[in-house]
């Protein structure tokens, strides 16, 4: 990794050039990808990223550059140019002495995937493929791809931060096609492991795959979902609902520019009093957890909404400056080629007091959503959408038929329409997804207790009028 004395010189060069703060993000990242299809390994790729991103701030203005030429000459030039881009004279600031720190990951490594032979990983994929095909006669095609990332990060800054963390991610992406001769359906799901190469537990991944196949086969014959406005009960567990519905508008870059529906609304009622919304990057064992954010700040529990009142935002250092607030340990980036930005980690609704069964029983008609795929948000308008991957009708207080091909959309006022929050919220230990944004794709989770939301827009293939 980057020599400390060189890092200090580079930072000082940036300060001398006009910055009032400078930061280096140094990354050494190795990846391995193995692709499998139809019982054969088709592709094996290894990759190494090794580079440095340099951010210089002066007041609310920022400049960012990166390079993978790590010579002293190149880094000093990059720092000089980044500072010059701000158009300010040097203020005589001195880089503080570094206080080196190795930050422990909230996801301790049990088995380092780098120590597992590629042949064993390839054999795993072939075994998963065979198991998936055997799970149902309706399985038409299976593709299993293995991804492994070992990321060593060190952040240096002009305040003396010198913090390092090692992060390891392993997952298998299963892409499955099922069909009955008339209809077909293709989906992909990630089997995530947050403790390294955690695929030795065969019963665990077999159970995951069987659940995926059983659900896909069930929904092969599901009727088309309805369209219109419906009351929706979202099952407890991992769900991107609140990540999409309200998470993105909390990101500081949008708030600071006045481009979030939550801009300027601290202290206002923005949700039902039953709702307390939290983002916490320090929770052990979750896909979105880190020991430190990508600016060297410790991750922490950030309460965004308390009993329905907006109490905070997610703030990277740049956004915090613009809002005259403190950073929240929420600066994240996909890799060194991106400047960090305010992003979510693990976003969840805290458990409430309502009974899970009563939420269903008290509805004459509604939708029960057991799992959600991806989605998107417009922080300016607050509008969002999520894809329903497992939904059932609620009819006369009971969960009845599966329905498919649906999207749910809404706006930030969906939070005001929550009228039930259940008592139990299981942690999504082997679940999660990627969130896309201005600083690239980052691993996240989003989860909740069982929650009921009134009056959501549901879009199915049924062509009925609203």
């Amino acid at each position, binding site marked *: 990794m980057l020599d400390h004395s060189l890092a200090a010189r580079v930072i000082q060069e940036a300060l001398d050039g006009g910055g009032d703060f400078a930061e280096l993000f140094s990354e050494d990242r190795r990846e391995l990808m193995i692709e499998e299809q139809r019982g054969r390994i088709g592709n094996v790729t290894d990759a190494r990223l090794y580079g440095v991103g340099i951010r210089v701030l002066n007041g609310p203005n920022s400049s960012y550059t990166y390079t993978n030429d790590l010579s002293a000459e190149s880094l000093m030039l990059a720092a000089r*140019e980044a500072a010059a881009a701000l158009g300010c004279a040097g203020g005589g600031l001195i880089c503080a002495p570094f206080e080196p720190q190795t930050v422990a990951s909230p996801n301790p490594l049990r088995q380092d995937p780098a120590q597992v032979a590629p042949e064993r990983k390839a054999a795993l994929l072939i075994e998963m493929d065979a198991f998936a095909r055997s799970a149902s006669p309706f399985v038409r095609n299976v593709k299993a791809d293995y991804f492994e990332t070992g990321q060593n990060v060190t952040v240096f800054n002009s305040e003396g931060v010198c913090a390092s963390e090692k992060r390891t991610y392993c997952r298998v992406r299963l892409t499955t*096609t099922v069909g009955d001769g008339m209809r077909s359906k293709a989906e992909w799901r990630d089997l995530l492991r947050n403790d390294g190469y955690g695929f030795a537990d065969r019963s665990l991944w077999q159970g995951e795959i069987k659940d995926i196949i059983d659900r896909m086969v069930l929904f092969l014959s599901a009727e088309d979902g309805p369209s219109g406005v419906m009351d929706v009960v979202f099952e407890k567990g991992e769900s991107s609902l609140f990540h999409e519905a309200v998470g993105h508008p909390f990101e500081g870059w949008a708030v600071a520019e006045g481009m979030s529906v939550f801009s300027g609304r601290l202290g206002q009622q923005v949700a039902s009093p039953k709702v307390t919304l939290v983002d916490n990057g320090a929770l052990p064992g979750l896909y979105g957890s880190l020991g430190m954010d990508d600016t060297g700040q410790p991750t922490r529990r950030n309460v965004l909404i308390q009993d329905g009142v907006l109490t905070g935002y997610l703030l990277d250092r740049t956004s915090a400056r613009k809002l005259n607030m403190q950073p929240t340990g929420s600066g994240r980036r996909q890799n060194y080629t991106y400047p960090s930005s305010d992003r979510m980690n693990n976003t969840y609704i805290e458990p409430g007091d309502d009974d899970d069964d009563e939420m269903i029983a008290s509805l004459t008609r509604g939708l029960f959503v057991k799992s959600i795929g991806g*989605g998107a948000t417009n922080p300016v308008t607050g509008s969002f959408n999520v894809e329903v991957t497992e939904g059932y009708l609620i009819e006369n207080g009971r969960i009845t038929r599966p329905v498919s091909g649906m999207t749910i959309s809404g706006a930030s006022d969906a939070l005001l329409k929550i009228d039930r929050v259940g008592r139990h919220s299981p942690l999504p230990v082997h679940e999660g997804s990627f969130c896309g944004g201005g600083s690239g794709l980052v691993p996240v989770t989003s989860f909740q207790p069982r929650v009921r939301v009134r009056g959501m827009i549901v879009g199915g293939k049924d062509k*009925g009028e609203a």
Partner: protein
Amino acid sequence: MRLQPHIDAFRALPPGVAQAEAHLEAQAQKRVAVRDGQAISTEFFDRSALYVRATGASDTGAATGLTYTENLAEEPVAVMRRAVENARVISATDAVTFTPPGLTYADDPRGPLTPPTLAELTRAAAGLEQAARSFCEDARLASCSLTYTRYVDEVANSLGLAVESACGYYTLECHILSERNGSQGEKKLKLLSDSPDGFNLEPAARDAARTARLLAGTAPIRAGAQPVILAADAACDFLFMLWRAMSAGQNRQSGAAFAGREGQQVAAAGVTLVSSATHPGCPIRYRFDNEGMPVARTRLVDRGVFRSLMSNRGTAGQTGGASTGNAGRRVTMSGVIQAAVQVTPKVLTIEAGEARRDEMLRQMGDGLIVEEILDSFHGIDYASGAFSVPVTCAVVSGGERQPGSRTLVWTGNLAAALNGVAAVGVEMRFSCFRDSYTLGAPDILIQDQSFAGAGGA
């Protein structure tokens, strides 16, 4: 060429390496966001990446492994050996055949290859910001940024192929907002040009500001089956949804809706979809794909008749056909380095027609106009073509666009939507995805599409 050390190494391959290929991708970019003429954020980089494939022995015969590195100083032989080591666990029996030399390539019109200084870029951005603001009138220009991008591609292999290409272009992005009754309307403007002076800014900015004003406020809206105009930006989003259903790579993975339909009428007669190296009005050009194959001009859909999937050498080899020059690496947004050669467009366009926007509105009468497809990644089954995506739209009544907007959910099928195309517009808009490929489309009028959402104001 920067690949010269690898070209030299290819003349005497190390033991265990039967064939090898190197693809160098160099990208330089400078971006300045301005406010009131001053730079508020700046980003710049100059980065190179190397993808090396090498064919060697595996347990089942010959196989091709791949390695990616950003350390261009690394010895070529060491890189090849690493790729071949990766080939060892491959059990598929279709080793890649690399591109032979001697093929015909288009000329290489390069665009601006000398990056501007940050000061020059800032001055240009400030001028464009001022102009855009003047065209916005009472809509608010919330942000304005100008980006210069230059890419240089080189592909060489042990068969003797050595090709290079370069392209430079500018991207102007403006975010325009307008408010009515406490509700925001917005329009994102993204234009491409081969120079800072080459943006056709005035009509685009005025149209974007008008759109933002019209979208402000919520509107009483009719859900259900009705015709729709996809504004050109939304039509580009639709093209993003569509192309994977015409990809041989997608078909090999989990099925593609248009596979096996060659020669069939899959779209209205007014629809022609072309995959090519460039397009008039688009400053981005690709001479060859990521395997060094010339990008063929291919009519994927010709006046409604489906002709061909997009393919690379690997997928073409499996079907006995020819590569269409569509080898690419970045199919989707991904949290990992997308190094494996897949199938992607280069420049993919819905060919312009002859209908102007006002003519389409009159032809439609009552319906919707979609300004943006909010999520063109999820909710799409490429095997069946079924989709369910959220859209920002406004009502059209009696051929007149009404103020206000809504988010509705558009559900349907890709082939059915193409079949419902009733008119194709004149003016093209282009959208570049991850600096990897470019999509272009005009306004499109589609009949009888299904939308779900809440009615009333």
